[in-house]
């Protein structure tokens, strides 16, 4: 057996199908370091897939001082979707910072804001920045008041989903979403206000 055969038969072998000769596969793996590595990687991949959480069930790190038990109790009821618009211009125009209608913060728990982004064309190496007020954090990034990452934007409409965690001592402030790309930069300010009134759905464009 050669390396190509080993790799072509690996899935059948792993899944217990008859197509692969078990003894030949084991013999080749045990004598070929490259295929042994391939075997380890494939098994690690499948182990990872078998324990992949359902979307929306990502494990969240806990942080001292945050009301963890209340998260659990309230999470199911406090997921709110809000559509806000941010339009990227083809060319850099005058700086503008639209302000969205205020969003009522959940008393404590999880809350989701979805910002619709309209892009005239595809952009790679787009820098996304989200700034958060005291007591509000991006799920998965505990304690970070500013989270920055890079990605790409396709032409047309994308959704920037921001799963927020609101602590019991959050009093409001501003969420600032900034998108920097080859054609310029756009920013959207979302006022976050303390309260428990139902959220309005608004659209804002730059």
């Amino acid at each position, binding site marked *: 057996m050669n390396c190509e055969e080993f*790799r*072509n038969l*690996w*899935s*059948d072998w792993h*899944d217990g*199908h008859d197509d692969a000769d078990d003894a030949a596969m084991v013999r080749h793996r045990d004598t070929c370091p490259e295929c042994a590595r*391939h075997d*380890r*990687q*494939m098994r*690690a*991949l*499948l182990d*990872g*897939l*078998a324990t*992949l*959480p*359902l*979307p*929306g069930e*990502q*494990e969240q790190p806990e942080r001292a001082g945050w009301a963890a038990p209340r998260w659990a109790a309230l999470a199911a009821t406090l997921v709110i*979707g809000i559509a806000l618009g941010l339009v990227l211009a083809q060319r850099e125009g005058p700086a503008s910072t639209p302000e969205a209608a205020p969003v009522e913060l959940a008393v404590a728990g999880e809350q989701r804001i979805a910002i619709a*982004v309209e892009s005239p064309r595809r952009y790679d190496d787009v820098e*996304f920045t*989200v700034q958060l007020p005291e007591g509000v954090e*991006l*799920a*998965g*990034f505990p304690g970070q008041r500013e*989270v*920055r*990452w*890079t*990605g790409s*934007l*396709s032409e*047309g*409409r*994308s*959704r*920037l*989903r*921001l*799963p927020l965690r609101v602590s019991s001592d959050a009093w409001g402030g501003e969420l600032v979403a900034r998108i920097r790309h080859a054609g310029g930069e756009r920013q959207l300010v979302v006022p976050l206000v303390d309260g428990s009134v139902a959220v309005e759905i608004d659209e804002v464009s730059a």
Partner: protein
Amino acid sequence: MRNPVRSLQAKRFERAIGPSMDHLRRLATRLTGSTADAEDLLQDLMLRLQSRMEEVAALEKPRPWLSRVLYRLFVDEWRRRRSTPEIDASVEPDDGAGDEVQPEDAFEQGLTRTRLQRALDRLPAFQREIIIMHDVEGYTLVEVAEITGTPTGTLKSRLHRGRGTMRADLAGD
């Protein structure tokens, strides 16, 4: 005025689909990639099934049948929506983890759930869906064949290619 026959039919329908709802919701969530879209897909499914209450109520094993209808609905009307670009801020930012990983262990240690999910999302739909059902949800090849209406030989080939693509993607090959 209530129609007693219709009401009885509705009850039988609910009894037939009730035990499968968690399973259907899970499958819908995996396929659409979001709990909100999964709920919408399930709503669509229920609307479709309303006119087939009698047929559903008479099913001996409703789960495979319902899974198949759900999957067809997803393929026909929802798969395209999934391809709409989305950025999930909870998974995109790079927190710098893994910077000090040694090359030999890099693949295993770099297999975070975020990277796995992204690599899965990058697969072509026909490979992603079989990996979701077979490798993530643990369906047998026969069950996947029944749900998707695809021969097992084709599924094995797609599984092989999809896994290989994911490995190469995650290994940076």
